[in-house]
């Protein structure tokens, strides 16, 4: 059974999702209770979690959820905003469809059935969206928005030092959207304290974020049955298990880590032990005992007071450890072992060294080692002496029910993810065409490189990879567009290359057509004329608009190649720029410095809205303008929801008008709220939504198969059959 997949259906789906998530968004958001089939009850305000819990059936909805979760994996934030924004975009597209139809559908397609026509139209829009995302968005971010950005770092110098008060504002705003509203300030204070306590030096904060994010589960302890306000931070590392044997020790405490059983066994794997007499059995047992005893004695003589083992040790080992005053913790998880190793830089102790002649070198000092009792459950509490920039601390999270504790855990983990993201530079790449026409190179490798590439699907996460990202990204896009092509194989499209090129058109500049073709002929190497020839029939039948597009694309590819070559030699963005400036379409690459923030309360959205509208007014090209307008208007949906419950002076229209006025008169913007949010996160959210939207728009048919459940999204291959 097939159903028409269109923006209209997608809009319905998105609207349903929007009603659910919009009640949890922002500081006024409320909680949602999810029950699991196992009977557990989970309290959540996390959009990703809610969408997963819904177990949606509709294929488009599932695709949206997949997009959201891939976005969340990357940034850890913004699932609810994602849905709201997507919904507004679809709504915007829906209302202006009629206008679009006139401008985009050319004559020859009108002979096709209406459905395919629609699809074609949607595809054009999706291509325009891609163009917007790759070119206009970054341009606007860099040229207009960046002057409004604030920094989370306290000084403007190169030395990056974190400012506590701005970090507090940032976290407070983050937790406003993630935990219950009576707890957010407490939790954000907790996290802030945690962070500043665990940071050994000002400069090492990135390492701290990485480590805490990686080992978050090991670094927090959940306790149910106590009020949330009993949550606290304790110095040292808490292992989620009890001592097998505990001997109180003071002073110089050394620890060793073992990964195998200390007691020698009769036979190891692959070997055979032959017992010939009972006496032999006795002696071997005796030897094993003596050996174990000797090892423990030796450890004691080296002042080892604590043995951490990743495996279960035999009772005999535990007994002799106890006799020698050595505490033992068994069955540590691999994560715990690697965390300890990372903090104190200690490698496991190898038994071969244990013969008494050698000094054991793999030991480390700890400040203390004692049992910790939280709600009648016993834990091991270690005061590790850190050798890296992370001073171990643990968060004890309390709550009346497990569901609430889990919510706080997730929110804290998400906050660390968000901060980790914030402290990375974000690259913005876009093209500016200048009138200068002297090409520096015309790479003949162009075509081969494009066709031989294995078409990796790694669009996600590319923005962060600074110096190789753009090329790969284009390749990824290429892959996608080529697969779309297969779907629309009944469309009369003469060449693959032509289709794939379209997304890279530069709609913001519209030179005359004749000029364009001339340029193409002039700068293309002979090997490529074939492509142009191939595309001839389509180009001719199409409107002049598409010719401009095609040729534009070819040039942009070349420039890509140019910059790629240029990049190989240089790592400094400044030098790149100078190199690029001499090409006809200069490829700009600038970075959004790490730690860029904006005040909360829809500031980013209103700003982007304003500049997008300005931009759209300036340029004439129709579809780019329309797309910009749609995005600009959809952006306002988020602040509208945020200010929904506010009255009078703080209502949305008032704020909107005030902000626009401030922008027009170049006054500083006034924000009613004191909180900060990451610009990089917002930017990535925007690009993720646009990608998701393009994905939705390029689907024409949803085919429902009544078979064993399998991969739901491979309609492409199904349609080829």
């Amino acid at each position, binding site marked *: 059974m097939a159903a028409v997949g269109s923006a209209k259906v997608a809009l319905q789906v998105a609207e349903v999702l929007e009603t659910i998530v919009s009640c949890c968004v922002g500081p006024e958001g409320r909680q949602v209770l999810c029950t699991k089939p196992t009977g557990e009850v989970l309290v959540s305000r996390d959009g990703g979690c809610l969408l997963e819990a819904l177990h949606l059936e509709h294929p488009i909805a599932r695709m949206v959820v997949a997009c959201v979760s891939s976005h969340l994996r990357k940034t850890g934030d913004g699932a609810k905003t994602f849905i709201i924004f997507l919904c507004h975009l679809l709504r915007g597209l829906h209302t202006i469809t009629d206008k679009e139809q006139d401008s985009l559908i050319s004559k020859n397609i009108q002979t096709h059935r209406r459905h395919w026509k629609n699809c074609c139209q949607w595809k054009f829009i999706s291509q325009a969206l891609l163009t917007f995302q790759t070119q206009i968005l970054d341009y606007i971010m860099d040229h207009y928005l960046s002057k409004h950005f604030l920094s989370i770092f306290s000084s403007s110098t190169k030395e990056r030092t974190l400012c506590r008060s701005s970090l507090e504002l940032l976290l407070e705003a983050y937790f406003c959207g993630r935990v219950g509203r009576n707890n957010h300030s407490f939790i954000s204070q907790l996290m802030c304290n945690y962070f500043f306590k665990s940071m050994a030096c000002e400069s090492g904060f990135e390492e701290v974020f990485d480590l805490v994010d990686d080992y978050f589960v090991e670094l927090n302890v959940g306790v149910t049955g106590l009020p949330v306000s009993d949550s606290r931070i304790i110095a040292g590392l808490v292992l989620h298990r009890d001592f097998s044997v505990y001997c109180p020790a003071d002073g110089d405490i050394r620890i060793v880590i073992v990964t195998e059983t200390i007691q020698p*066994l009769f036979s190891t794997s692959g070997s055979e032990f032959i017992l010939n007499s009972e006496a032999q059995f006795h002696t071997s047992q005796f030897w094993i005992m003596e050996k174990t005893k000797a090892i423990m004695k030796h450890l004691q003589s080296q002042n080892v007071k604590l043995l951490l083992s990743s495996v279960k040790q035999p009772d005999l080992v535990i007994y002799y450890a106890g006799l020698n005053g050595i505490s033992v913790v068994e069955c540590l998880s691999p994560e715990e072992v690697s965390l300890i190793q990372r903090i104190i830089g200690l490698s496991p102790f190898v038994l071969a060294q244990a013969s008494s002649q050698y000094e054991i070198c793999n030991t480390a000092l700890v400040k203390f080692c004692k049992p910790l009792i939280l709600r009648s459950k016993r834990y091991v509490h270690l005061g590790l002496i850190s050798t890296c920039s992370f001073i171990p601390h643990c968060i004890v999270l309390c709550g009346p029910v497990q569901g609430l504790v889990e919510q706080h855990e997730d929110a804290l983990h998400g906050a660390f993810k968000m901060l980790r993201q914030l402290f990375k530079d974000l690259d913005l790449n876009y093209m500016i065409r200048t009138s200068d026409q002297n090409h520096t190179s015309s790479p003949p490798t162009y075509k081969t490189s494009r066709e031989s590439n294995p078409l990796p699907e790694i669009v996600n996460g590319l923005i962060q990879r600074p110096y190789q990202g753009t090329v790969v990204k284009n390749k990824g896009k290429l892959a996608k567009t080529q697969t779309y092509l297969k779907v629309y194989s009944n469309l009369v499209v003469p060449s693959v290359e032509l289709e794939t090129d379209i997304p890279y058109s530069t709609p913001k500049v519209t030179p005359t057509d004749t000029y364009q073709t001339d340029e193409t002929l002039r700068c293309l190497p002979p090997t490529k004329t074939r492509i142009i020839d191939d595309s001839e029939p389509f180009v001719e039948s199409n409107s002049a608009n598409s010719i401009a597009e095609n040729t534009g694309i070819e040039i942009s590819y070349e420039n890509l190649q140019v910059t790629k070559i240029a990049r190989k030699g240089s790592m400094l963005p400044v030098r790149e720029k100078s190199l690029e400036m001499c090409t006809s379409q200069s490829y700009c690459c600038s970075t959004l410095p790490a730690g860029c923030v904006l005040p909360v309360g829809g500031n980013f959205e209103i700003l982007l809205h304003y500049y997008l509208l300005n931009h759209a007014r300036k340029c004439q090209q129709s579809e780019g303008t329309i797309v910009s307008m749609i995005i600009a208007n959809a952006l306002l949906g988020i602040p509208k929801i945020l200010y929904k419950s506010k009255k009078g002076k703080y209502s949305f229209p008032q704020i909107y008008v005030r902000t626009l006025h401030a922008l027009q008169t170049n006054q500083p913007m006034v924000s009613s709220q004191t909180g900060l949010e990451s610009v990089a996160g917002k930017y990535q959210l925007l690009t993720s939504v646009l990608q998701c939207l393009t994905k939705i728009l390029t689907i024409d048919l949803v085919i429902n198969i009544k078979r064993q459940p399998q991969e739901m999204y491979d309609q492409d291959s199904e349609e080829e059959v």
Partner: protein
Amino acid sequence: MSRLEAKKPSLCKSEPLTSERVRATLCVLKGILTSSYGPSGRLKQVHNGLGGCVCTTSHSSALLSNLPVTHPILKILTTSMQNHVSCFSDCGLFTAILCCNLIENLQRTGLTPTTVIKLNQQLLHLCTSYLKSESCGCRILVDFSRPQTLLCLVRSIVTSKPASMLTREETDHISALVLRAFLLTIPDNAKDHLILGKSIIVPSKGQRVLDSSVFPGILLEMSEVQLMKILPIKKSDAFKVALFCASLSGDLSDTGEGTVVVSSRVSLENAALEQLLNLGRQLVSDHVDLVMCQKVIHPSLKQFLSMHRVIAVDRVGVALMEPLSKVTGTPPIGSLGSISPSSYGRVKDLCPAKFGFKHFLHLIPNEATICSLLLCSRNDTAWDELKLTCQTALHALQLTIKEPSVLLGGGCTETHLAAYIRHKICNEPESILKDDGCTETELQLITEAFCSALESVAGSLEHDGGEVLTDMKYGHFWSTQAESPSVVNWPDLLSRCGCGLYNSQEELHWSFLKTTRHPFAPQTCLPHEEATGSANNLTLDCFTAKLSGLQVAVETANLILDLSYIIEDKN
């Protein structure tokens, strides 16, 4: 190959609290809880239609764990209460009733959840800071040199559990026993770090409650035949004990991952037994009097030991190992090799004992923080309840050692707190309204809801149709007998307030709890020394448990009021 099955879509419901069904179920739950609350609470008989034992109880942990709830909101409420009870043992019903009351009252105000939660949190903060403050009028500092306060605390807990079916005399007996058992677990020479011992509850069903008693040391239960075998125990001034945690059954230890090849003439069992007997010989030559083993002792070894007049007790179980090692003063032995003389422990005396139909071997230590509380009761259900009660009381005493204060019980803390909050909000509302965008009317509505929730918890103590009142000076809780005459002279009708601190002969004015009163500042003159000394029968509550219960109740209510959707996974 596992079969893939498509997940069913979940069920999503909006605004769960507005649904009539949820309100009705919440109301039923509240009814169950309130009717069980307090010394005169009604008992609940929980039984499974498919068989299994019948549980007669009014104890929150037994009630909530036996009550199956299906609705997610109720589930979150009951798990929250169960978690509280497992942390503090006490004040479970208080927490649950307060939470239900809060949800009901706050929802009735019809304000937006944001306002409700914000103000609720502020009021909670007001309560906790008052209870912790020096000027608190319902908190008494515990003087450990006078056991009277502790005894009152224990007695309040014991009387508040009517399902243990105790008479007045029995209540006094049990309370004294529990307190004695607790005092025995406190080490004599405590350094800066106090480590409490353990009271082991030993069941003895079918005897009179008054036969219950406390013994220092450990009672090891054994069959009569076993006990007769070891009798008579030879007399000496101290008994040498070998305590094993390793198995003495003679089975082979782990041989590793490779293969072990044994020639046909070699018998490993013999070898193992030979090793055990060697051990036995060593024990005998070391003049050990008692051998105890966590696991199994080989019959041959047992036989050998009994031949040499060594008492052997096996299958002690892991739970008793720690108390045993404390009583004997030695860590358990984990190896079958030669034993150093220092690893033997000692007990002062060993004697057989018989309580009811059960025979015990009584280990009397020289000095240890372990004691056995022998609890007797006439029937099983009453014994279960009595055991829960004693555990609760012991836990409350432990918590009181950590935080040496107690709260006035019998509903007085609740009414006093409500009076304090009303007064505070009436006189200085700015302190709460300073930064939020809430109006004074909203604050007053929420305060009324919060305070009446607290007061109706106190009011649920009265089950017999009597009137519930509060006085206008101290803000304490008073209740009358049922069927009181309509024309009243209150001082004659009332005798003492809920906690027993004040009597009605003082110049007091009363008002019904349900009616609106003019806010007044509750007086905080706690007669410390003489009153706690003179009023022997104060009703007291555990401070830590009640404070945490209050916080948990408000936080859970906030959580439930904040719910906008319920997503039920139907897979």
